[in-house]
C-alpha cells in the first residue's frame, strides 16, 4: 500500500479538469475549488491524524520479509485496534467457520494483503473519533464500507487484479464528507438545509455554501496525510471518473459502486430517492474500454446480491462503533 511518513509525495497537477458528472453541470474553475478547500482544511487547528500504528503496520507489510509476529505485536499494542480487527474478521463479510478470538489467528485468516486494508479501515474510524459528527458518522462509515465492499466485489467479478486496493479506495472516497460533518459543522448544516429545502444536489449545495466540495476537501486531507497519488485520484474524481487524468479504471469502479450503493440499497441522508441506468454512466464507458468482462456483468443479479450483503455491512459498522 505504501503510506508514507515522510514529506509530500508527488501529486498530480493541481488543476482538476472540467467535470460533467451526473450530479453536477460543468464547472470550469476547479483550481479555485482546490484552493478554497485548502484554506478550509488549513483553518482547522487540530486536524485528524492517521494513527502512527497504521503507518508502521503498512511499512512492515511492505517489507519483502514480513514477520507476522511483529505485525501482531504492533497491533496488540493498541487495544481498540486489536478489538476492531477481531470484530471485522468475525463479521458476516469474512464468514469464518468458527469464531476467531485471537489476533494472530485473525491475521493468519485474513492473509497479508487484507491486513493492510483492515488496519487502515480501523485507523480511519479512529482518526475521526475526536471530531464532532455524532450519529452522522456511523451513516458515513456504513456508506464507505458499503462502497468499499461493493467496489471490491465488482473488481473480483470483472477480473480486475487489485481487489484489495479497490476496497480501500471505496472506503476512502468520501473522507472529505466525513471531515465536513466532523469539523465544519455549520457549513454541513447549511448544506443539508439547502438539499432538503431547496432540492439542490449535494455538490451544488456544497459549492453554494463553501465554494468547494467534499471531493477537493478530501483531496487536501489525503495530501496532508501523505496518501499515495492513486488514493488522491479516487477521492478527487469519484464523481467524475472520466475526467481523472490517470487511473480512470479504479476511479470508475468506485464511482459505479457508489451509484450502486445509493440507488440499490441507498436512501443516504443526502441523496433521497435516486434511480440510475448504470449502462449510461460515464464510469460504465470508462470500464468498458479496459474490462471486457463487463459485457457479461449482470447488474440485476448484482443488485440482488448486494441486498444480501447489506445486513452484514450494517452489523459490522455498528459493532465497530461499539468500541
Amino acid at each position, binding site marked *: 500500500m505504501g503510506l508514507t511518513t515522510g514529506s509530500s509525495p508527488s501529486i498530480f497537477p493541481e488543476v482538476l479538469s472540467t467535470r460533467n458528472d451526473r450530479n453536477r453541470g460543468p464547472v470550469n474553475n476547479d483550481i479555485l475549488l482546490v484552493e478554497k478547500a485548502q484554506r478550509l482544511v488549513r483553518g482547522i487547528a487540530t486536524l485528524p491524524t492517521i494513527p502512527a500504528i497504521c503507518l508502521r503496520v503498512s511499512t512492515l507489510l511492505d517489507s519483502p520479509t514480513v514477520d507476522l509476529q511483529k505485525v501482531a505485536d504492533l497491533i496488540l499494542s493498541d487495544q481498540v485496534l486489536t478489538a476492531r480487527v477481531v470484530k471485522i474478521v468475525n463479521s458476516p463479510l469474512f464468514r469464518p467457520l468458527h469464531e476467531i478470538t485471537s489476533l494472530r489467528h485473525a491475521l493468519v485468516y485474513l492473509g497479508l494483503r487484507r491486513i493492510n486494508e483492515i488496519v487502515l479501515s480501523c485507523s480511519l474510524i479512529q482518526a475521526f473519533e475526536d471530531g464532532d459528527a455524532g450519529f452522522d458518522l456511523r451513516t458515513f462509515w456504513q456508506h464507505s464500507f458499503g462502497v468499499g465492499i461493493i467496489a471490491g466485489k465488482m473488481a473480483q467479478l470483472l477480473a480486475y487484479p487489485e481487489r484489495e486496493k479497490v476496497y480501500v479506495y471505496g472506503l476512502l472516497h468520501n473522507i472529505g464528507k466525513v471531515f465536513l460533518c466532523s469539523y465544519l459543522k455549520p457549513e454541513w448544516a447549511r448544506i443539508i438545509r439547502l438539499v432538503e429545502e431547496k432540492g439542490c444536489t449535494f455538490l451544488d449545495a456544497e459549492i453554494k455554501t463553501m465554494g468547494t466540495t467534499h471531493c477537493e476537501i478530501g483531496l487536501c486531507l489525503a495530501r496532508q496525510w501523505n496518501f499515495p497519488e492513486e488514493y488522491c485520484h479516487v477521492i478527487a474524481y469519484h464523481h467524475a471518473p472520466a475526467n481523472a487524468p490517470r487511473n480512470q479504471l479504479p476511479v470508475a469502479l468506485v464511482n459505479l459502486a457508489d451509484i450502486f450503493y445509493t440507488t440499490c440499497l441507498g436512501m443516504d441522508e443526502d441523496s433521497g430517492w435516486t434511480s440510475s*441506468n448504470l449502462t449510461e454512466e460515464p464510469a460504465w464507458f470508462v470500464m468498458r474500454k479496459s474490462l471486457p468482462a463487463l459485457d457479461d456483468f449482470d447488474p440485476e443479479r448484482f443488485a440482488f446480491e448486494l441486498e444480501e450483503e447489506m445486513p452484514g455491512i450494517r452489523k459490522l459498522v455498528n459493532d465497530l462503533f461499539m468500541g
Partner: protein
Amino acid sequence: MNISDNEFCKLRDFIYSVCGIYFHVNKKYFLDNRVSRRMAAVNCKVAGDYIDLLRSGTQGREELKRLLDEVTTNETCFFRNAAQLKAFELHLLPELIKVKEKIGCRKLRIWSAGSSSGEEAYTLAMLLLENRTTLLKEWSFDIVGTDINERILAQAREGVYSPYSVRNVPEMYRRKYFTKVADQFVLAPEIKKYVTFSNVNLYDDSKMLFLKTFDFIVCANVLIYFDNSAKCKIVQHFYNNLQPYGYFFIGQAESLHGVNDRFKPIHFPGGFVYTK
C-alpha cells in the same frame, strides 16, 4: 432435510440461469422446504442428486416445472411489492405525466400481464384514483388485465377477496375501497370500472400484436413459466407494445438479464424497472 449452503447456492444459480428468479439467502428455509417435498416425491435422498436431476435433459425440465410450481405457489395479493409501488406512484408516474403533458396526451394506459385474480391491476387503479384530483386531474386512464385462465379471470371480474389477499392493503385504502361481507372483502365498483380483464395467451403473436401503446406494463412472476426462447419472444412483444417513454416492471426477484438486451434496467432503492 437441510440443504447445505453450497447446495443452496448451486440450486439458486441454476434456477436463476433458467428462470431469471433470484432466491435471496433469507429464502433458504423456504427453498429447502419445497425442495424436500419434491425430493420425497421423486424418491431422491441426496440434494446433490436432485440438483443433477434438474440439470438432466427432458426429465430435468419436467421436474423443474414441478419444482417451480412448488416455489411459486405464493399467490398474489394487493400492494404486493412496496418498493416498486412507491417508485411507480411517487417517481415514475409523475415523470411520465410530465412527458405526456408535453405531447398533449392526457390518457394513461397500463397493462397487468398475467393478472391472475386481479390484485395487481386493482392496486394500480387505487393508486391512480388517489391521484385523480392532483397529478391526474383531467386525465383519463384505463388498465387492462390479461390472463390465460378463464376461471381466474372470472374471479378477477367479480372482485371478492379473502382477508389474506388484502393483508397488505393500507388501512385508508381498505376503508375506502372495500366492503367487508362475512369474512370476505368486496372491492368497490368505482375501482372495478377502471380495469378490463381479457383472456390473452402471452405466447399468441396475433393477440399480442393488438395490445399497443401502453405507458406501464407489469408482468410479475409470469415469465418463469416459459422457456428461454418463448420468454425472449414475449418480452420483445412487451418492448414493442410499450411507449418509448414507458416503463416495464417484472417481479421483485426476477431479472431479464440474458432475455432481452434492448430493455435497460433502471435501478432504484429496493428494485429496478426497465425502460427502452
